[in-house]
């Protein structure tokens, strides 16, 4: 655990923001205040946090339908995100994107993506820009276990290897693609090995362990920044909730779900280890928790009351110019 106290605090705060943002968002959704679909990242926080800890605003990530955690880890402002999931006029995407399309180009966040597997080729494109310009940044694609079967993802991996691009394929194996288990949908049962066969280093880590993700990503980033080509990391971390809110989860048992919070909570695991191995205390974490809750409550409140888009906004930003 060679992270200093500030880094540890930041990591925990980031994960806590994800957790509370989604749990609050969930309440708002169930109360009928949010449109569309919403996908909880709870249980997977250590992945985005561990991956993005190595990135700056000049690095890129391309995200998924389950994108809130990625946004937060990449530095998007909670307040702007809240406005967007409420589809408010001043949201990150002016209310036109919503939860499944949050993007923040200034932060290098190239968008959540409602097309499963859509992120991978886009991240390869960002990596191509980096290489063309001669920069030493990286571009990360977040990819679900389900998405790992999509042709676009395989193609993206091969192209990244062929062009030796600084692309990192971050697989989030949360056990399911909607209702379908990974043991069923991934024929080989081994996402990392499949990625490795495309000709790149392929790591596999416990995605509930912040430190494991952080370490694997450190190696990946070093490799990619050095111009040695792409890397993949499979992070295994079960999701706690249904696929989207409203999913009755008939496909798994109540026990399986209950056990997750007990044994696979990335925040608890992080807290316990950090308290054992650093000077941070229970009270430090409690203070972060309180601050996070307050901030998110305020952000959601503000978003709920914020102005809606104007009807004329329907027609803007289709093109820069069109006539």
């Amino acid at each position, binding site marked *: 655990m060679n992270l200093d106290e500030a880094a540890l605090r930041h990591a925990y705060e980031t994960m806590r923001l994800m957790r509370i943002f989604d749990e609050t968002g969930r309440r708002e959704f169930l109360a009928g205040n949010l449109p569309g679909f919403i996908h909880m990242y709870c249980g997977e926080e250590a992945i985005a946090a561990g991956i993005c800890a190595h990135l700056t605003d000049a690095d890129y990530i391309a995200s998924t339908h389950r994108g809130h955690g990625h946004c937060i880890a990449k530095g998007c402002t909670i307040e702007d995100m809240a406005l967007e999931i409420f589809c408010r006029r001043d949201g990150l995407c002016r209310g036109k994107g919503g939860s499944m399309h949050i993007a923040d180009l200034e932060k290098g966040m190239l968008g959540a993506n409602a097309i499963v597997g859509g992120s991978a080729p886009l991240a390869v494109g960002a990596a191509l820009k980096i290489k063309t310009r001669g920069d030493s940044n990286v571009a990360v694609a977040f990819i679900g276990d389900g998405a790992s079967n999509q042709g676009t993802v395989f193609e993206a991996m091969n192209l990244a290897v062929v062009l030796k691009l600084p692309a990192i394929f971050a697989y989030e194996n949360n056990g399911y693609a909607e209702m379908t288990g990974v043991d069923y949908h991934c024929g080989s049962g081994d996402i990392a090995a499949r990625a490795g066969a495309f000709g790149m280093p392929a790591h596999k880590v416990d995605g509930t362990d912040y430190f494991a993700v952080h370490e694997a990503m450190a190696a990946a980033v070093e490799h990619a920044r050095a111009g040695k080509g792409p890397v993949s990391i499979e992070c295994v971390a079960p999701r706690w909730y249904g696929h989207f809110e409203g999913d009755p989860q*008939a496909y798994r048992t109540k026990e399986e779900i209950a056990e997750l919070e007990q044994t696979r909570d990335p925040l608890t695991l992080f807290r316990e280890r950090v308290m054992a191995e650093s000077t941070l205390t229970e009270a430090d974490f409690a203070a972060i928790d309180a601050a996070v809750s307050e901030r998110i409550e305020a952000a959601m409140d503000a978003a709920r009351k914020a102005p809606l888009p104007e009807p004329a906004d329907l027609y803007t930003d289709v093109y820069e110019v069109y006539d």
Partner: protein
Amino acid sequence: MAKITMREAINQAMRLEMARDPDVILIGEDVAGGRGCPVDDKEAAGGVMGVSAGLYGEFGAARVIDTPITESAIMGAAAGAALTGLRPIAELMFADFFGVCFDQVYNQAAKFRYMFGGQHGAPMVVRTMVGAGMGAGPQHSQAIYPIFAHIPGLKVVLPSGAYDAKGLLIQSIRDNDPVMFCEHKMLYGEEEEVPEESYQIPLGEARVVREGSDVTVVALGRMVHLAVEAAGELEEQGISVAVIDPRTISPLDVDTILDSVEETGRVVVVDEATPICSMASEIASMIVSDGFSSLRAPIRKVTAPHTPVPASPVLEAGYAPTAASIREAVEAVYNYR
């Protein structure tokens, strides 16, 4: 006759056909509801919208086939199976996803019969969800069927309710050509009286939903209901509006439309798809070509704008046509001199 939802009507159609013909299979993502998981057959979800609920329990894993997220392989598997003797129903969860898999539909399945010189076609149905209204945003709300209609070799069906959905789906499954069966997500919960037994509605026959002598409104899918609503209101103003639901957009029942235009001379076409190269354009162009002598006013297209579908519910509400925008268009062509 019992009132059932369009969801149930589609489910019935599949169940009846699967029971009748062992070559009918259903393949797609979560159409069973989570294979490989400790799922109870009876509780298997039957698709994200529950449309295929119960089929897995009834017909088993060999005929109700969950797949990975792999639309090209799903469409290709259906096409290959259809070419060799099955009658697959392949689910493309949202029509918006056609961009990752359309080759297997449009270059393969749709062209087999022609490019193989008539040896065999691809008797398959692609069931897919279309339309706005759920706040699901730009990639889950499109009414992309004009693209399907453009393709020679495909047939395209767009039912406006439970009764038509059942009869048209049974017909589509029995059809020997590939059919894109487009289900509007906002209609799944809508109820209509539907006979329990099997029945077929031929492809290419429009339904005259409402007779009328002043203006012809041709409306597609969910728009049919708004057109009927508008027509009712207009009747009170003394404007008699015919409403025609083509039901299948390829083949299109040109005669039924032209017959009505001959009487009214005035036309409004209503569609939720974006306007350029759309079915609204197609229908208008067909009329100005083949029904010109009857035309007494410009044809008004009432459609979504040429924009993506916004996520914001307030913006989305202004996206698709409404009864009010239809009424306004009808008044405009009615008053044209």
